[in-house]
């Protein structure tokens, strides 16, 4: 006996797909109460290590938006060995990043020759006033604790 194949009309298949999704868990992350963990390389905020910075101005020059403001002066430090001459060291007066202008491209972190800037995936720093989006060097130093450890590589 020939099997009669009844062709199910296409819209019933679609309705069945939608209906079966009614019983699956929802995929929304209920934001203020549950948070997603981002990848360690995600670009949230830039952290500064003041000890390593020598005010070479490479980051401020290469920034496409010119949002980094650096001022510094040279200080004389006592010599390392007695009898030597005093060495000069660069000290930062001002290192501001204006996050209202920053476009999170990462060029400053990459060109820094002294490992003073790091990326951190923390993104919750919205403010009510635009002027408070200018993070000064103390605030940038505070972000350093949120920088994650580097994970291994595939190769």
């Amino acid at each position: 006996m020939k099997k009669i194949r009844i062709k199910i009309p296409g819209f019933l298949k679609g309705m069945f797909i939608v209906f079966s999704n009614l019983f699956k868990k929802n995929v929304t992350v209920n934001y203020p109460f549950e948070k997603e963990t981002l990848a360690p390389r995600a670009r949230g905020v830039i952290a500064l290590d003041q000890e390593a910075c020598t005010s070479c101005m490479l980051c401020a020059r290469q920034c496409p938006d010119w949002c980094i403001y650096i001022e510094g002066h040279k200080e004389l430090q006592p010599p390392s060995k007695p009898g030597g001459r005093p060495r000069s060291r660069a000290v930062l007066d001002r290192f501001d990043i204006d996050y209202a202008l920053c476009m999170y491209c990462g060029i400053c972190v990459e060109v820094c020759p002294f490992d003073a800037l790091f990326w951190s995936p923390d993104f919750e720093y919205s403010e009510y006033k635009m002027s408070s989006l200018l993070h000064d060097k103390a605030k940038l130093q505070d972000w350093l604790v949120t920088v994650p450890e580097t994970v291994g590589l595939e190769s």
Partner: protein
Amino acid sequence: MVTTIDPENRPFVSEASVSVEIETEGMTLNIGPQHPSTHGVLRLVAKVEGEQIFNVEPVLGYMHRGYEKLAEVRTYPQVTTLVNRIDWVSGFANEIPFMAATEELMEIEVPQRALYIRLILTEMARICSHFVFNGAYPLEIGALTPLFYAMEDRERVLDLIESVTGGRFHPNFNRIGGIKPAAGAGPTTKKDIQDLPIGFYKETQLAMEKILAAADKFEDLVGGNEVFRARTKGVGVLPYDIASSYGVSGPILRASGVKFDLRSTTDYLPYKDLDFEIPIGENGDCYDRWYVRLQEIRESAKLVLQAIDAIPTGPLQTKVPKVIKVPKGEAYVRAENPKGEMGYYVISEGGLGPYRLKIRTASFSNISVLPWILEGVLIPDLLAIMGSFDFVLGDVDR
């Protein structure tokens, strides 16, 4: 002078016909910059009679950001950060032709591993862009649910891109000579090379298998629906000679029957080593354009799976000087973006940045066909056709 009417030969009154024509003028309907269905701020000034359109004039420029002028005052690494944002839905694919043009001017060769990673990320960007289309196009036709399913599947790919590059939409991961290794810009850096992170291969494989299953789900939910077929089959037919004479490219040209794909004809990325098919359509109507993009999602997922197996080891970037100066010359490179063909024409006078950068975007040429194709269609069909062209205003206006 008195005219007498001859009783024998007087004209029949019934033969003298009086024609009364009711003069109707069409209505000018401004499908304006703010509208739920134009993908951005596109303005169409349509002359409409009843519901039938007899003339459409697109007005562009509401989103012009001046890319070509901005690129003249930036250095080469900085231009990459700008160029991401032209077609913001597929971020990575916009950087590639510019990199290829600059590398051609500097005459350096990119290592194989970098080329394979570029290929993987470009195909992921293509999947992202086509998922946005698959979610937004049924929304314009009226089905409200596929958008949410599309966004959920797209999140998987965006998470993968974020784990490699750090950014979801604007990765800024290409550097001249390869991709970003971040290995040492000076004497004391101890930063690690930013190669692919641990677990990338496994996660990508799982994600691509889910994407292949999602493409099947969309084919059932959207393509099998009789209402969707009635709305899109036979609507907005674009013959292949008109398409090629207007400069249309990408999935729209392939849906009209032309088997032309820059991935297999040019070699800016190693597509020749991998095995993929080029989906083409038969009629050139809206259904074919939708179906070609769905098939492209499947082909891209298969390409990524193949590329992960075939990726060679090696350096990620050739040696380039710290301050990049490109020698004098001109170069034009075309690439297959998700929206169509994108090309960058770089003229360099030996300085730190390009002297002139001309960007040929896909959507700008694609929507030049709109006045031809929208003559005589009804208003709902206008939205179906415009949606199937899948343009983004950032791509149109730069």
